[in-house]
C-alpha cells in the first residue's frame, strides 16, 4: 500500500533539466539587477536624490513704502488661507458641507475650487478660501475635529495701510503671469506663483522692491514633509524700502479734494521737481489684489465709466485751456511781439477770415494789457498775440516748458500730450486736405484749445519752470531706495534740470505778477484758491476751462461739461509748491478746480500755523505680526487664479 518501492521513473535527467531551467531563471533576474543597479545605477541614484531633496524657497520680504516724513504707507502682513488635504479626509463631501455651514460659502463653490486643483497630489493642500478673516480662522480652528483634512496656511500678503491712498502712484502686486515669466524683464529669477508689481511704482521698482529669495535644501518624505534640514542654505535678502517724495497730508488733501469727481492733481516742489502729491480719481484699493478678483471687478477697474486704473494725473491728456495763456505771455514777451504795456481792444470777439472768434466774455473786456488779459482770461488778447507769434513759435515755447513730450516720471505709460505745429500737421495728416495749417487754428492753440493736449503733471512741470527762473525740472516721485541688509548702495535722486526755457526772468516776472492778480484781484478768476488771510501767504495761479469736443454734446449730458483746470503756486514771491488740478467735465476752472488747489495748498502750509491735535495720528487697525518671509515649498506654490 505504501509506495516505497524504487521510483518507477528515472529522476536524474529530470533533475538536471530542472536545474538548467533554474540557472537560466536566476541568470535572468541577475541580468536585470545588473542592468538596473550597475548600468543604470547613476540614473536611478539621481532620481532617488530628486525624490528626497527639495529646495525650500524663502520668499524675501518685499520693500516697504514710506512718505517723505517716514510715515509708513505699504508693508507686509500675514494672510490666512483655508486649505484642504484630501488624504486626511475620508469623506470629502461631508467635510465640505461642514466647512460650508461654518463659513457660509456655498458647498458647490468649495467643490469647484477643489476641482480646479485636481492635478495636485492627495497629500498636497488645495486652496479653498484665500485671505480669510481672523474670525473665520478662529472658527475653523475651533471646529477642527469636525473638519478632517482642513488646514489653515499663512503666507505674506501686501498691506496698503491707507487703502486707496495714492493708489495710482504706488500701484499693486499680483501673481506673475505666464507671459511675464517669459519676458526678458523677469526671465531667469522669477518663478511661477511669485508676486510682482503690476502697476505704478510697485512695477517700476519691482527689481529693487523684490529683494532676493533665500533657500534651504531639505530632505522630504513622500508626503513632502520636511524630515531634515541640510547645511546648504542662503538667507533671503529683503527688498529695498522706498521713501517717496509724497507728503501724506498733501496727498490726502488732494485725494479728498477730488471727492467723487474724475480728475487728477499734481503737487510738486518747483525748485527740485519733488512730487508732493499725485492724485487721480476715481481710485482703487490695491489691497483687493491680494485675493481673487471677479470678472465684474476687473471690468470696473479697467473699463466702465470710472476706468479706475487710469492715472489721470500722468496718463490723462486734456486741452490745457487758459492755463496755457501764462506760457503764451512769456513767449510773447520773450519774442518781443508784446510788452507788458501793449494793449488790445476786446469787443468780445475777433473777426478773422470772415469768422468771429469769440471771447469767453461775449460783452468784451474793453482795452486790456498782458496783466488784465491774464487776470480776466481775455481770449481776444491771446488771439492777437497768437497771430503775432505764429503757431510754430507757440509750439517752440510750449516745448521749452516741457509740453508735448513725456516728463520722464518713473511711471509707465505716461501720456506725452501734444502741442500742434505746422510740421506736426504736415506729418500727421500727410496726404489729406487737413495737411495744411489754417491760420484760424493758431487762434485755438493760442488759448490752449484745438489739438493741444497736456497732462496735469506736464502743466505742473511747465508752471514750475515759469516760477523757478525758467528751469524744466524732472518730476521725482522717489526720494531714496534703501536696502536693509546693506547689500546695495542707497541711491539718491538729486534734483535734475531737464532743460532751460531760455526766457529772461524779467519776462517770467511779468507773467507771474499777472498770475498773482488771477487769485488776488477783485476781478481775478482764481480767487477760490486763496489761503486764509491771517497766514499771509499769497497764492498765484491761472484758471482754465477747456472746451470738450462738440461732437459728443448731443449724446451725453455730463460729457458736454468743460474740463476745469487750475494751476496755482505759493508763496507767490518765492514759490515752494506748484499744484495743478484738472476735473474732467467739471465746468468752470475757477469754480471747480481752484478750490481743489486751495485745499492742497492749505494742507501743505497748514502745519506752520495750526498745532496738530493730540491723537489725530491715524491708529493702526490691528497689531500685526510682521512676516519676514514665510518658507514655502516650491511645489506647493499657489496656482495662478486669474
Amino acid at each position, binding site marked *: 500500500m*505504501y*509506495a*516505497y*518501492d*524504487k*521510483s*518507477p*521513473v528515472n*529522476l*536524474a535527467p*529530470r*533533475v538536471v533539466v*530542472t*536545474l538548467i531551467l*533554474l540557472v537560466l*531563471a*536566476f541568470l*535572468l*533576474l*541577475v541580468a*536585470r*539587477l*545588473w542592468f*538596473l*543597479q*550597475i548600468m*543604470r*545605477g*547613476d*540614473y*536611478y*541614484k539621481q*532620481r*532617488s*536624490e530628486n*525624490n*528626497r531633496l527639495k529646495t525650500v524657497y524663502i520668499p524675501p520680504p518685499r520693500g516697504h513704502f514710506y512718505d517723505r516724513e517716514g510715515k509708513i504707507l505699504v508693508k507686509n502682513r500675514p494672510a490666512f488661507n483655508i486649505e484642504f488635504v484630501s488624504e486626511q479626509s475620508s469623506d470629502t463631501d461631508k467635510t465640505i458641507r461642514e466647512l460650508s455651514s461654518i463659513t457660509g460659502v456655498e458647498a458647490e463653490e468649495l467643490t469647484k475650487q477643489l476641482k480646479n486643483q485636481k492635478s495636485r*497630489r492627495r497629500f498636497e493642500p488645495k486652496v479653498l478660501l484665500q485671505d480669510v478673516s481672523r474670525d473665520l480662522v478662529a472658527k475653523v480652528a475651533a471646529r477642527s475635529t469636525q473638519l478632517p483634512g482642513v488646514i489653515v496656511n499663512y503666507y505674506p500678503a501686501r498691506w496698503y495701510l491707507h487703502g486707496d491712498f495714492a493708489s495710482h502712484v504706488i500701484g499693486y502686486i499680483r501673481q506673475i503671469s505666464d507671459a511675464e515669466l517669459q519676458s526678458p524683464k523677469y526671465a531667469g529669477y522669477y518663478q511661477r506663483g511669485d508676486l510682482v508689481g503690476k502697476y505704478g511704482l510697485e512695477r517700476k521698482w519691482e527689481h529693487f522692491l523684490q529683494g532676493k529669495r533665500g533657500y534651504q535644501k531639505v*530632505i*522630504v*518624505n*513622500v*508626503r513632502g514633509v520636511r*524630515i531634515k534640514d541640510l547645511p546648504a542654505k542662503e538667507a533671503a535678502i529683503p527688498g529695498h524700502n522706498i521713501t517717496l517724495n509724497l507728503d501724506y497730508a498733501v496727498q490726502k488733501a488732494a485725494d479728498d479734494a477730488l471727492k467723487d469727481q474724475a480728475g487728477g492733481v499734481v503737487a510738486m516742489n518747483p525748485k527740485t521737481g519733488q512730487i508732493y502729491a499725485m492724485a487721480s480719481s476715481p481710485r482703487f484699493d490695491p489691497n483687493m489684489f491680494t485675493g481673487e478678483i471677479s470678472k465684474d471687478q476687473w471690468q470696473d477697474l479697467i473699463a466702465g465709466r470710472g476706468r479706475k486704473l487710469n492715472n489721470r494725473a500722468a496718463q490723462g491728456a486734456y486741452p490745457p485751456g487758459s492755463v496755457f495763456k501764462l506760457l503764451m505771455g512769456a513767449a510773447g514777451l520773450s519774442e518781443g511781439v508784446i510788452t507788458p504795456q501793449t494793449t488790445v481792444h476786446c469787443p468780445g470777439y475777433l473777426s478773422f477770415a470772415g469768422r468771429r472768434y469769440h471771447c469767453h466774455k461775449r460783452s468784451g473786456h474793453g482795452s486790456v494789457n498782458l496783466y488784465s488779459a491774464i487776470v480776466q482770461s481775455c481770449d481776444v488778447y491771446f488771439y492777437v498775440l497768437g497771430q503775432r507769434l505764429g503757431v510754430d513759435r507757440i509750439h517752440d515755447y510750449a516745448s521749452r516748458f516741457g509740453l508735448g513730450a513725456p516728463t520722464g516720471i518713473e511711471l509707465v505709460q505716461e501720456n506725452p500730450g501734444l502741442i500742434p505745429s505746422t510740421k506736426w500737421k504736415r506729418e500727421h495728416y500727410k496726404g489729406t486736405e487737413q495737411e495744411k495749417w489754417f491760420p484760424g487754428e493758431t487762434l485755438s492753440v493760442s488759448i490752449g484749445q484745438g489739438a493741444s493736449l497736456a497732462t496735469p503733471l506736464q502743466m505742473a512741470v511747465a508752471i514750475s519752470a515759469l516760477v523757478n527762473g525758467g528751469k524744466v525740472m524732472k518730476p521725482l516721485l522717489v526720494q531714496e531706495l534703501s536696502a536693509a541688509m546693506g547689500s546695495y548702495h542707497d541711491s539718491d535722486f538729486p534734483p535734475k534740470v531737464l532743460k532751460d526755457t531760455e526766457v529772461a526772468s524779467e519776462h517770467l516776472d511779468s507773467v507771474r505778477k499777472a498770475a498773482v492778480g488771477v487769485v488776488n484781484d477783485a476781478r481775478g478768476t482764481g480767487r477760490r484758491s486763496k489761503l486764509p488771510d491771517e497766514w499771509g501767504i499769497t497764492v498765484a495761479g491761472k484758471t482754465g476751462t477747456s472746451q470738450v469736443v462738440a461732437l459728443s454734446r448731443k449724446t451725453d449730458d455730463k460729457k458736454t461739461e468743460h474740463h476745469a483746470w487750475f494751476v496755482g503756486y505759493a508763496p507767490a514771491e518765492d514759490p515752494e509748491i506748484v499744484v495743478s488740478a484738472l476735473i474732467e467735465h467739471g465746468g468752470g476752472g475757477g469754480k471747480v478746480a481752484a478750490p481743489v488747489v486751495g485745499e492742497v495748498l492749505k494742507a501743505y502750509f497748514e502745519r506752520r500755523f495750526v498745532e496738530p491735535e493730540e491723537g489725530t495720528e491715524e491708529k493702526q487697525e490691528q497689531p500685526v505680526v510682521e512676516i519676514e518671509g514665510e518658507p514655502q515649498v516650491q511645489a506647493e506654490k499657489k496656482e495662478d487664479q486669474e
Partner: protein
Amino acid sequence: MSVRKIVGVTFDWQLLFVTLLIPSLGLGILYSAGYDPDLKIDLFSLNSIIIKSHVFLKQLLFFGAAFVAMLITMLIPTRFWHRYAYLFYFGALLLLSAVLVYGTISNGSRRWLSLGAFNLQPSELIKVCVILVMARYLSKTPPRHGLYSLTELIVPALIFLLPMLLIFVQPDLGTALSVGAIGGAMVLFMGVRKKILIAFALLAVVGVGVAWNSFLLPYQKDRIRVLFDPESDPQGKGWQITQSKIAVGSGELFGKGYLQGSQAQLEFLPERTTDFIFCVLSEEWGFSGSVFVLGLYAFLLYRMMMIVLRSKDLFSALLVVGISALIFFHMFVNIGMVIGYLPIVGLPLPMLSYGGSSLVTMLFALGVALGTTVRRNLYVS
C-alpha cells in the same frame, strides 16, 4: 539520544541552515523597512534594547511560530502525509468554499476566515495540500508510456484547477496562478507529450487574449499596462513600479547602507514591508546584497533538487519538487515584479516579506521537504 540518532545520517543540514538563514536575514531587512526613528519599544524594559520597528517584533513572533511548525512537520514521517493527503486536500477545499460565504472582506475580496484569535487564509493552506495530493496521485500513476497523454492529465488537472477556481473567484489572481504553477510544474517534471505542450502554449496565448477581453478587472489591466510604460502615469498607476525601480537601481553596487535607503526610509516605496521588501534590500545593500540573497534562494533550490535526486521513492521526490515549485514561483514572480519584469501581483517574497501566513506556510512546507531526509534509512527495505 543524540540528534543524529533522531534525524539520521541523511538529514540535510545544509538545507536546514539556509532555511533558517533566509528568514533571519529577512528580519534584518524588515527592521529597516519598518524602521521608525520616533519609535521606542523598550524590550524587556531594561532600557538596553530599544526596538524601532513594529513589524520586526511581530515578524519575530511569526518566525518563532513558523519555526515550531517546521520542527513538527520535519519530524512527522513522510508516510503520514501520503496517508492523509486527500483528507487534508478536501478539508482545505471545504475551508476554501467556506471563505466565499463567511470570509472577511478586505480590499474588495474574501480571503480570510476569522477564527477568533487569529485569521486563517485557506488559500495558503491549499498550496501545500495540492502538493500532497499531486505527489500522491502522480506517484501512483506515472505516465504509462514515458510521457503523460491528454487523458492521463485529466485527473491531475482537476486536482489543481478546482482550488484555482475557488481562489480565483475570491478574487485573488496571484494565489490562483501560484496554485496552477505548482500543479503544472509537478506534471511537467513527470513529463508531458510534446504535442500537448505545444497545444497548451497556443491555448495560453489565446487564453491571455480572452482573459484581457473578458474577466480581467480594470485594475489588473492597468497593472499590465504600466508594466510596459510606467512613466506614462508616474504619479498614479505607475507610481509603485516607478518608485520600486528607482529604489533597486539607486542601490548601485554596494547599496546606500543599512537604514540609509532614502526610498524606503522616506516612504517613497509603497508596501515596503510586504510585496516590495526586495527593494529595501536592493537599495540598502546594492547589487552585491541582492545577488547574495538570490544566491541563498538558488542554494536552497539546489539542495532541494539534490534531495529529489537521492530520494528513494517517487512520492517524496514529487513532494520536494512541488515545494521547490512553490518557493521558486513566489520568489520569481515577486522579484520579477519589483524589477519590472512582471505586472504587479500581490505575491509575497518567501521568508522575507512581512506576514505570518506566508512565513508559516513556507517553513511548514520546507519542514515537510526536510522530513523526507529524516531517518530515511528506516523506510528503506
